[in-house]
């Protein structure tokens, strides 16, 4: 294998299109501009100073200075998920690059388009253990869709254009372009995006019509159908969401969604079953278990969704639509695999359903719906209200009630609060819900909220947080204050790492090893120290006022919402159990929680 990387440059191009001479650092700015970038999250350092020098001399691209590179990565993820555009990050070599590893992997697992530019030590020093050197392309190879080390300034422009193409085409994901400092200083020829002709990466987006016809035929025969949707619907764009809603109306099928897909079908819609999976609703999981035709659209049968695999929806014909062929058949066998972009496949599916169903006798779904209504009657999200302390579920319900009439974006950290947010905040629109699903990154929510707010300056952006997660990237409050990003951090403070504790109660004999935070900061004072507003509320009867105050404060807010300490997140599929073996909140007594997983099972951990 050769050690240098070359892109074939356009040859014999007419002089007018041959590009202009400029430095590598100037090319970066030009390429960002030509790829429609208006906002950039970053942190300067020695190996990117030439690019920062160019940033200083222009006004088209706004640079958001974070306080830690991880914050830049998550902010760019929030920006990308709320806009559908690629998020862009600029960090320096060495620690700048290694601090980006977590957001890159997070973006890889949740299919978020991210373009990360890293500085690198000058080419002659690569491999010499130079100051702030690391093998960036080596380290980021498994956590990106693709990455490049630019060794010649004349390759830089086309590599940058290709980076945007790879990040956004097909299943979106993160890419890294590593640019040595001497390449930034060197002068070469800039080529515009139109001259990128070597697109080796051209994923298939149009579904096979014969397969789609087979799928529609199976759907037309279904007596107990379900639509199981995921983040792929949202990634495919607003048209996919519109078509999905049209399909639901046409077919009358019940619909559930993964954590990542919330909002693609409105939570207020009558066909909505709620989220499925480990902390999904009883009706969603029972419908999945008992269905005869499952239409999986842009979801990937994650282990948090399927529970026990050998008992997963045993009697159903499974149709799986995904733009990534490697997702199909990876975990669960697909009877009708359809490789393609969700939006394009749904367009064909809706059209074929119209054609094929006109005049056809379709099965009556009323028995199926009355069965579903029985499951719904189980009221699996019920919790016992409390007049003295705030129940976390109640806090989310009130936040929803008081913010649903605004343009509201919700981000979360990871843990119990995340599941409660997913269960109790009814999302009616796509791109309004930003959470770390695949990687489960604590510390995601605050910087993600910042990124969302930069993209939507007039919207209400709330990070629903836990007291433990929020402390992982709390430094970005400083960034929010600097950039006048009026994000609202609503901490459901129970003084525990709640989800860790819940698992310790379930699996480890209630031995709460290091899941209690003994020295909690005063979040109100912390907010004030950053120059933000701090609010605390401990009583349910004062909660609405506190939430209103948070929403109406013009600047950033940390709202310390002190909730009951020992609430757990239900319903829940205990590990190793099937969808129809859920632990429901009213059954979840201490005893039932303790014995949900039997002794023999515990020993197998």
């Amino acid at each position, binding site marked *: 294998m050769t050690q240098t990387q070359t892109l074939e440059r356009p040859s014999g191009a007419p002089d007018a299109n041959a590009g202009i001479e400029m430095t590598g650092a100037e090319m970066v700015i030009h390429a960002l501009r030509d790829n429609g970038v208006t906002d950039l999250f970053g942190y300067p350092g020695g190996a990117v100073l030439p690019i920062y020098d160019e940033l200083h001399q222009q006004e088209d691209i706004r640079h958001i200075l974070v306080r830690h590179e991880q914050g830049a990565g998550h902010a760019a993820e929030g920006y990308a998920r709320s806009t559908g555009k690629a998020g862009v990050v600029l960090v320096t070599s060495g620690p700048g690059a290694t601090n980006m590893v977590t957001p890159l992997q997070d973006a890889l697992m949740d299919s978020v388009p991210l373009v990360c530019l890293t500085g690198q030590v000058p080419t002659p020093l690569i491999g010499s253990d130079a100051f702030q050197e690391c093998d960036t392309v080596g380290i980021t190879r498994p956590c990106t869709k693709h990455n490049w080390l630019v060794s010649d300034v004349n390759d830089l422009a086309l590599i940058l254009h290709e980076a945007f193409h790879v990040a956004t085409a097909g299943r979106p994901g993160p890419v890294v372009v590593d640019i040595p400092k001497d390449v930034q200083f060197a002068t070469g020829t800039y080529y515009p995006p139109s001259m990128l002709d070597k697109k080796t990466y051209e994923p298939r987006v149009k579904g096979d019509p014969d397969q789609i016809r087979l799928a529609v035929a199976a759907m037309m025969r279904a007596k107990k159908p379900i639509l199981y949707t995921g983040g792929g619907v949202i990634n495919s764009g607003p048209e996919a969401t519109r078509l999905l809603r049209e399909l639901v109306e046409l077919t009358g099928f019940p619909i559930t969604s993964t954590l990542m897909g919330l909002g693609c079908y409105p939570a207020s819609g009558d066909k909505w079953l709620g989220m499925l999976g480990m902390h999904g609703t009883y009706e969603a999981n029972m419908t999945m278990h008992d269905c005869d035709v499952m239409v999986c659209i842009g979801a990937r049968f994650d282990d948090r969704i399927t529970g026990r695999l050998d008992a997963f929806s045993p009697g159903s014909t499974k149709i799986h639509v995904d733009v990534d062929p490697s997702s199909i058949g990876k975990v669960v066998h697909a009877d009708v695999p359809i490789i393609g972009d969700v939006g394009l496949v749904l367009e064909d599916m809706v059209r074929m359903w119209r054609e094929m169903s006109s005049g056809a006798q379709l099965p009556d779904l009323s028995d199926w719906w009355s069965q579903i209504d029985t499951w719904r009657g189980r009221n699996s999200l019920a919790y016992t209200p409390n007049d003295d302390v705030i129940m976390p579920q109640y806090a989310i319900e009130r936040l929803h009630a008081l913010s649903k009439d605004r343009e509201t974006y919700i981000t979360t950290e990871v843990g119990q609060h995340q599941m409660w947010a997913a269960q109790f905040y009814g999302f009616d629109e796509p791109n309004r819900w930003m959470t770390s699903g695949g990687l489960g990154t604590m510390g995601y929510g605050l910087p993600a909220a910042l990124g969302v707010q930069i993209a939507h300056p007039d919207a209400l952006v709330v990070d629903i947080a836990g007291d433990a997660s929020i402390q992982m990237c709390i430094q970005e409050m400083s960034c929010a204050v600097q950039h006048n990003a009026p994000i609202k951090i609503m901490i459901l403070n129970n003084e525990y790492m709640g989800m860790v504790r819940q698992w310790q109660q379930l699996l480890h004999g209630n031995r709460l090893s290091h899941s209690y935070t003994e020295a909690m900061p005063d979040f109100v004072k912390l907010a004030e120290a950053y120059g933000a507003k701090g609010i605390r509320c401990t009583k349910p009867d004062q909660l609405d006022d506190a939430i209103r105050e948070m929403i109406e404060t013009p600047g950033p807010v940390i709202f310390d919402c002190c909730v009951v300490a020992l609430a757990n997140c239900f319903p829940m599929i*205990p*590990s190793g159990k099937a969808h129809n073996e859920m632990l429901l909140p009213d059954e979840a007594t201490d005893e039932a929680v303790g014995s949900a997983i039997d002794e023999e*099972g515990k020993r197998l951990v």
Partner: protein
Amino acid sequence: MSDTLKNQGPVTQPPASAYFIAPDTQIIVQHTLSIIVDNEAGALARVIGLFSGRGYNIESLTVSETEHEKHWSRITIISKGTPKVLEQIKRQLERMVPVHRVVDLTLLARDKGHDKPMERELALVKVAGKGEHRVEAMRLADAFRAQVIDASVDHFTFEITGRTSKVEQFISIMAPLGLVEVCRTGIAALSRGPEGM
């Protein structure tokens, strides 16, 4: 080089962890994959990293640039796994940016009615010794059609080409005759018939 992905056998009680590990009862088979990639920095590392990162096996790996004008390399990998895992390996390889084509030569051979693709390996085998052992080594090398590519009064170095089983057999026969060291290329493979991949 191989990370084993073993059959777990039937599990009567699911493990009570945050993860459910499903029993895999499918049989393990061995397939030969041919992969065309851009010959660029890190391309081989990407392919190997995929195998180690996802716990796939590599039994043999051969790589070299085969089309100089296009800067394309051909990687031949022998992997073991359940049919489902092998299918997954192919799909994971296909979605890598520098990968142009992936062909499962074993499946292709089966489709064409053959037992397996053409597979050959080259080995250099150094044997040192005197007297009867030396004569015997030379005689056996003739029988195996191995070439002598280096010799002194104390040693021979043989070059042998053939199926893996032939190379294995030759090496094991040489072992008592003063085998010093062996270098093997790994397997090069093509499908039978006039068509390319």
